[in-house]
């Protein structure tokens, strides 16, 4: 298999604070292949945005990458000096943020912002750059682009603005886009349009996407694979359909159960008791163990590694190949209802 586009190995992101060092991302590893859409899902505070920021090199100080490696097309990028990383940003890795209104400088026309970005990374002349800008606006679906290219951000609606943001991120064809909650700030009716646009453009240009969000619906629509994050760690990663239909990690299972689904019988939404621990209070062993219905002794002592299971990987001791229990039995345990626990042999 060819080298994955992005490889993240044992990434640790730390925040020194007055009260001690907080670990926002605790030893995570994942890959993104060329043209692939990897969803990164989890609750607020799970470390998803930090991961994205670390990949593109925009961690806000005092946050820093304390350990691990990030490789783009096989070359390390996490330890590059600022100027070299800057050349990678925009050109090879792009980013889209949550709020389209504040992502655009209100004092400059969007044409100027597009031309500026284009000219930073290419030697197109002003005229050619401007023409390219108009093309891009058309591509993202802005009507009358020749006229609107000189308008200011406040003259666009929220959905239009996010389209402009997408145009800006894609204007010099980066191989990878980090999309951090790209639809959260938009009206529900617009969200679907923007997601569809993003998906289409990335397929057309072969751009890989790291789609960070807390919205499983968006992931289901768009992603090829998904990584579920919990308390700064990856709980499970795998193909989207697998993770959604047959969640292996108890947390992922709880997550899926708590999403209302149209078409199912009206039953009570499952709720995972308790809440995600704060970064200062992460329990020893598996971070999820206090809330896990199936936790046993080892879970409380040893932090689980990402164990390859079928097409994905799970960070749960239930799936340790050294277990007496088989993978299928483990899956049954996890997917059983709380009221009817499955009798299980010794793990």
């Amino acid at each position, binding site marked *: 298999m060819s080298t994955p586009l992005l490889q993240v190995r044992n990434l640790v992101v730390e925040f020194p604070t007055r009260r001690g060092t907080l670990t926002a991302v605790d030893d995570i590893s994942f890959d993104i292949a060329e043209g692939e859409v990897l969803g990164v899902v989890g609750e607020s505070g799970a470390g998803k945005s930090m991961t994205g920021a670390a990949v593109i090199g925009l961690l806000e100080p005092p946050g820093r990458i304390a350990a691990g490696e990030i490789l783009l097309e096989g070359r390390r990028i996490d330890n590059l000096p600022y100027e070299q990383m800057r050349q990678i940003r925009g050109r090879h890795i792009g980013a889209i*943020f949550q709020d389209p209104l*504040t*992502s655009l*400088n209100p*004092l400059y*026309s969007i044409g100027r912002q597009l031309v500026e*970005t284009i000219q*930073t990374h290419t030697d197109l002349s002003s005229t050619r750059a401007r023409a390219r800008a108009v093309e891009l606006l058309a591509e993202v679906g802005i009507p009358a682009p020749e006229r609107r290219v000189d308008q200011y951000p*406040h*003259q666009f609606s929220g959905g239009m603005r996010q389209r402009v943001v997408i145009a800006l991120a894609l204007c010099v064809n980066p191989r990878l886009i980090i999309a951090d909650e790209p639809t959260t700030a938009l009206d529900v009716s617009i969200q679907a349009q923007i997601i569809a646009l993003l998906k289409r453009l990335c397929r057309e240009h072969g751009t890989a996407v790291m789609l960070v969000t807390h919205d499983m619906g968006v992931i289901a629509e768009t992603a090829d694979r998904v990584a579920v994050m919990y308390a700064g760690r990856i709980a499970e990663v795998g193909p989207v359909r697998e993770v959604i239909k047959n969640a292996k990690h108890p947390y992922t299972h709880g997550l899926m159960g708590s999403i209302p689904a149209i078409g199912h019988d009206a039953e009570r939404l499952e709720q995972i008791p308790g809440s995600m621990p704060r970064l200062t209070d992460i329990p020893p062993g598996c971070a999820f163990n206090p809330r896990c219905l199936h936790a046993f002794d080892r879970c409380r002592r040893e932090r689980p590694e990402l164990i390859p299971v079928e097409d994905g990987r799970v960070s749960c001791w239930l799936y340790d190949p050294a277990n007496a229990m088989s993978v299928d039995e483990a899956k049954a345990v996890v997917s059983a209802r709380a009221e009817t626990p499955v009798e299980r042999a010794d793990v």
Partner: protein
Amino acid sequence: MVAFIIRRLLQSLFVMFFVALVSFAMFQFIGDPVNQMVGVETSLAERAALRERLGLNDPMVVQFWHYIVNAVSGDFGISYQHKRPVAQMLLERLPATLELSLVSALLSLVVGIPMGVYTGLNRDGFLAKVFLTISLIGISLPTFLIGILLIFVFSVTLANIPPISVLGLFAIDLSVLQLPSFGRGTTVDLGWWRTGLLTSDGLKALIMPSITLGLFQLTLIMRLVRSEMLEVLRADYIKFARARGLSNRAVHFGHALKNTLVPVITITGLQIGSIIAFAIITETVFQWPGMGQMFLQAVQNVDIPIMAAYLMLIAFFFVVINLIVDMLYYVVDPRLRVDTGKVSGHG
């Protein structure tokens, strides 16, 4: 746009009217102008005649009307103390104050803005901390104290300092750095405008007063620019600009600076007005023959016509400057151009 101008003009008229009211009220409050103007020997009959001629027996509203009409045509009455037309006295002293004020304002902008930008960009640098300390001192020292200290160092001490001998080889005579501490030096008349800018003498005399007057403004501007800069650098559009790989120069001076300067314009504009008023103090310390010194003497001698005229003049300056600043705001911030109904302003 037109509606905006009209509204601001109306506001300005309202302010002028109100100030005229206050000025007029001063006359009424302080007692009989006739008694102020004549000597003790003047008979009661003559006083009564004078009162009649000055229109002091007319109803209040009529007197007020006359007052406004006169003011608009440039007649501010006769000074009680000096027995000369106030308008003429004002004109004589206007150039001195205006030159001093404008040079101070220029100084504070030319030094303050770059200092502010520097300390905003290099938050924790050593030089930045030095600047900040200087700014704190600038804000803490009352204007008159700054003036006195400058005089103490550059006029008194330097005058008496003996030449410093360096290694017995030659002597440095610091007294050449001595600066004049009162008056404007040699002035040149350009028509009715008496300027000190055309002689080296006059320029030397301008140095200490303009530093004194401008120091407070300088620190204010520096702190403002700094805090705006810090605020702006945290904005999403800056993050997005970095994510697009724009150079530091483009981010700092293209995007951040422009957004920083918008509120700075307003404050600066308003401050110019207050510089003219603060000139009172500086002119007193340096015996500068300007309007401020005249006003102070008027206050001490209860010379109401001068006090009232000065007040109106200052109000006029403020109103004009305010209008110019608002126009500038309009030019700089595109958000204001579209929503003419929503000009919220900056008060």
